[in-house]
């Protein structure tokens, strides 16, 4: 039995076996990247449209979401941001930059066991409000912080 299996592996080659596994439903295509890229959401140009594209029908402002970032960013090309949610069962954290050409910057999926906390660096075209949008238990919450930009980071 085992010898036959070897034979099949050799004959099929790596991709063939993978294709078979896919066909048999053992592996879903793109499983390594659990989800697709939400093109519609990343093309939105306002906070309201982004929220809709992310599946929210409305969001409540929450003091339990903390945005840690400089009040004034000298270089809009690199603005460090830390977002931390104190809301139970936080599932996703999205970063929206109101006055950028495209509002949505990033959407992080937080599985159970991972802290509802993330730090990254974003580009800002100009002084703008930053929205941190948290989905927790299917509901949406947000916090806002204004960051002043002295030198925009999108025009290059």
């Amino acid at each position, binding site marked *: 039995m085992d010898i036959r299996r070897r034979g099949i592996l050799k004959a099929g080659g790596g991709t063939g076996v993978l294709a078979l596994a896919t066909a048999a439903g053992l592996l879903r295509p793109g499983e*390594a*990247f*659990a*989800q697709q*890229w*939400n093109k519609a959401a*990343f093309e939105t140009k306002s906070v309201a449209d982004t929220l809709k594209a992310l599946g929210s029908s409305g969001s409540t402002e929450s003091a339990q979401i903390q945005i840690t970032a400089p009040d004034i960013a000298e270089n809009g*090309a*690199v*603005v*460090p941001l*830390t977002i931390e949610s104190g809301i139970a069962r936080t599932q996703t954290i999205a970063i929206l*930059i109101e006055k*950028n*050409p*495209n509002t*949505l*910057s*990033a*959407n*992080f*999926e*937080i*599985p159970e*066991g*991972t*802290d509802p*906390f*993330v*730090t*990254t*660096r*974003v*580009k*800002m075209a100009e002084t703008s409000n930053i929205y941190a949008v948290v989905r927790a238990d299917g509901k949406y919450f947000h916090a806002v912080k204004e960051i002043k930009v002295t030198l925009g*980071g*999108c*025009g*290059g």
Partner: protein
Amino acid sequence: MADPMRIRANMAGDKVEVRVLMSHEMETGQRKEPSGAVVPAHFIQNVTVTHAGKTVLSAQWGTSISKNPFMHFRFKGGKPGEKVTISWVDNKGERRTDEVVIGGG
């Protein structure tokens, strides 16, 4: 092929603290060459972090993540000596996977 990511994963109490610096242009598609030609967008769209066969963080990114993206987060359930694997895919289908062994506190 893009340069390797620089990843650090260390225990902080009962959690694993992960810091990663990726090497990527993160071109927005808004920028123009001096000739006036638009530089096409080239940016990371999906990032997945796994530990022991489980996804511990995944992200979708737009063009406004800074060049050479940085990310910092924490997850529970890792031990020193185990591996953390990080993968990204960009809008041109280029991809890169790197892993790191979790260090002590």
